[in-house]
């Protein structure tokens, strides 16, 4: 037993080393730096909470906006991902895996390509406005389709969707059909089966899909800049600016850690809610 444990620990070492070297160490460095200061463009070691205070006093509204829009996008994306994965698992029969593969193929389009694609579709002379005008539904282009929060939500949902589908589908694949049939035979209603079996089984995958989308979205700054219009900028833009242009990695680090902590809290809240909703009843 002890030998097996030792072997398992030894086998884990490379993975742990990579995790520590590429993730934990850099993160720890920036966590320490978040308590430092910058003077005349050079880092000065310190132990101050000043940067954290600035995050809330100077960037509080941007942070709140970012978390709100990221939570909305993550919710919409996870819901669509669940619907798609549910269809692939229970309705598409032998085409299910193929449909999942098709959704993943869209990832090859790339991030910027998707942004430009939505700019083309939503623009004043774009496909959507042209179609609406051709159908006589609008007399002129709707400016709010592009350069608005709506455009940010659509673009980021489209980008994150394939990434969100995968964990939900993985979770639903693990659900045994016989359990559903047994529940049905025992007289369980459709909503009861959905909540107590399907949703309970997909809980982990749904949380993963939501978390993945939330983290990607909350950190993004290119999409709001490209399609968000004059007033949709998110915290990622200012984090990038602190590191890249303002030489202020302490403030940038503090902004990043506050954002990570807030995202963690949101994911925890969702996880606890889902757990409460799907708690087994006696």
């Amino acid at each position, binding site marked *: 037993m002890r030998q097996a444990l030792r072997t398992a620990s030894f086998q884990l070492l490379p993975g742990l080393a990579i995790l520590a070297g590429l993730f934990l160490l850099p993160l720890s460095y920036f966590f320490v730096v978040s308590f430092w200061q910058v003077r*005349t*463009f*050079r*880092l000065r070691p310190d132990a101050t909470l000043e940067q954290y205070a600035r995050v809330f006093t*100077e*960037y509080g*509204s*941007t942070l709140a906006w970012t978390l709100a829009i990221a939570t909305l996008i993550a919710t919409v994306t996870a819901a669509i991902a669940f619907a798609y994965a549910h269809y692939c698992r229970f309705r598409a029969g032998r085409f299910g895996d193929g449909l999942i593969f098709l959704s993943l193929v869209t990832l090859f389009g790339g991030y910027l390509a998707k942004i430009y694609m939505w700019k083309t579709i939503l*623009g*004043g*002379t774009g496909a959507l406005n042209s179609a609406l005008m051709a159908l006589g539904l609008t007399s002129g282009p709707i*400016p709010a389709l*592009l*350069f608005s929060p709506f455009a940010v939500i659509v673009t980021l949902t489209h980008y994150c969707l394939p990434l969100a589908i995968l964990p939900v589908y993985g979770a639903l694949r693990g659900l045994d059909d016989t359990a559903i049939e047994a529940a049905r035979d025992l007289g369980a209603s459709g909503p009861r089966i959905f909540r107590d079996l399907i949703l309970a089984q997909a809980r982990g995958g749904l949380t993963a899909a939501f978390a993945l989308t939330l983290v990607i979205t909350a950190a993004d700054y*290119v999409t709001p*800049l*490209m399609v*968000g*219009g*004059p*007033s949709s*900028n998110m915290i990622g*833009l*200012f984090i990038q*600016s602190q*590191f*890249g*242009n*303002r*030489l202020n990695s302490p403030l940038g680090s503090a902004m990043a850690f506050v954002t990570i902590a807030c995202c963690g809290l949101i994911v925890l809240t969702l996880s606890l809610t889902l757990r409460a909703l799907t708690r087994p009843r006696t």
Partner: protein
Amino acid sequence: MPTLYEKIKRAGLLREEGGMVRLRTFGPSLTRRQFGALAAGAAGAAALGAGRAQGGEVKFMGWQGYEEAFAANGFAASKDITIAPTYQADNGQAMTAIANGGVGSMDIVTPDTGYTRVMAELDMLEPLDISRIPNWDGLDPYFKSIDNIVMDGKPYAVPYAWTIIPLMYTPATIPEAPTSWMDVMKPEYKGKVGLTNDMISMVANFTIAVTGKKQATIISKAELAEVFAFMTELKKTQARTVAASYGELTDLLASGEVWIAQGWVPVQLWAKEKGADVRWTIPKEGAFCPIDCMAMVKGSPNMDDTYTLLDAAISPEGQAHAANINATGVTNAAAVAMLSEEVLEIQPHDDIAAFYEKATGGQPLPLWPLEADGDLATLDDVLDAWDRFMAA
């Protein structure tokens, strides 16, 4: 003293099979003919290498396309110099890189004249020995007289390119060229005004417009607040968007999403390539006209090659080659004759000193002060105000 045989044996390169000693090889075995050919080839390559000039790798961090000056007539390759480029999106990025380990490892950066002074004051740049840059003599006299390049009698950079950040408009929707920056507030342009994510250009131009001061970086904190109040009002009431880049601004102007914008002269050329008519104008208040330089980073590990490249950057051939690609103005007077018609159309070179006198009051703008100096707005004040503007 061990013999060579013993050393090889100890290193594990010999193995004994059936009474024979064999040399262990790594990879496929070679016949004697193959070995001979390989040896001859290696000797030839070594001889060829010995005959070529010694060159190295020069680490360049700057605006994309500026390194084209080194490629004119295959210059860098002929000197056996390899350029390792890193492209920046902002001058602050180069400063960040130098402040975080760049001293002693980077060679060339491309600050504008405002940043050149700051970087020199922060001991990030090497003062240049002009005797090693013969093409310095060919520079237009205006560029040799810039305060922020020559400090305490020592030049810290070579002026490389200049350009104009004007007001741009689409004649299809605005037939007469706008005469003032304030035209962007006209009610008929509501939702059709383009802004850019180019902090220095935006703040400089709207400072010129709001305060009437051509030295737009020497303003009080109250004036800065006034400028940003105007910009925020403009963004909230008139702007279609804040373009992420000038390429995106070109698309916006060409597609009709935007009719009037703070722009950059090459946008006119790029729009023309897309079949759109976009023009630039310098409003009556003036306009920001930055001059980008090339400078040697403190402790450059490859100083000789860096001097060679800095000289090539302001040679007539290097200047014209890069300017025709980047659509920027040249600083070497002899390069003007080699510019394409398109570049000459958007970048007037007739009397550069008079042009700057009209546009900026003479000297290019310095950067905002780094340290508090009375009531003057500092660079930090501007950066903080810019973040608030972008978040608004």
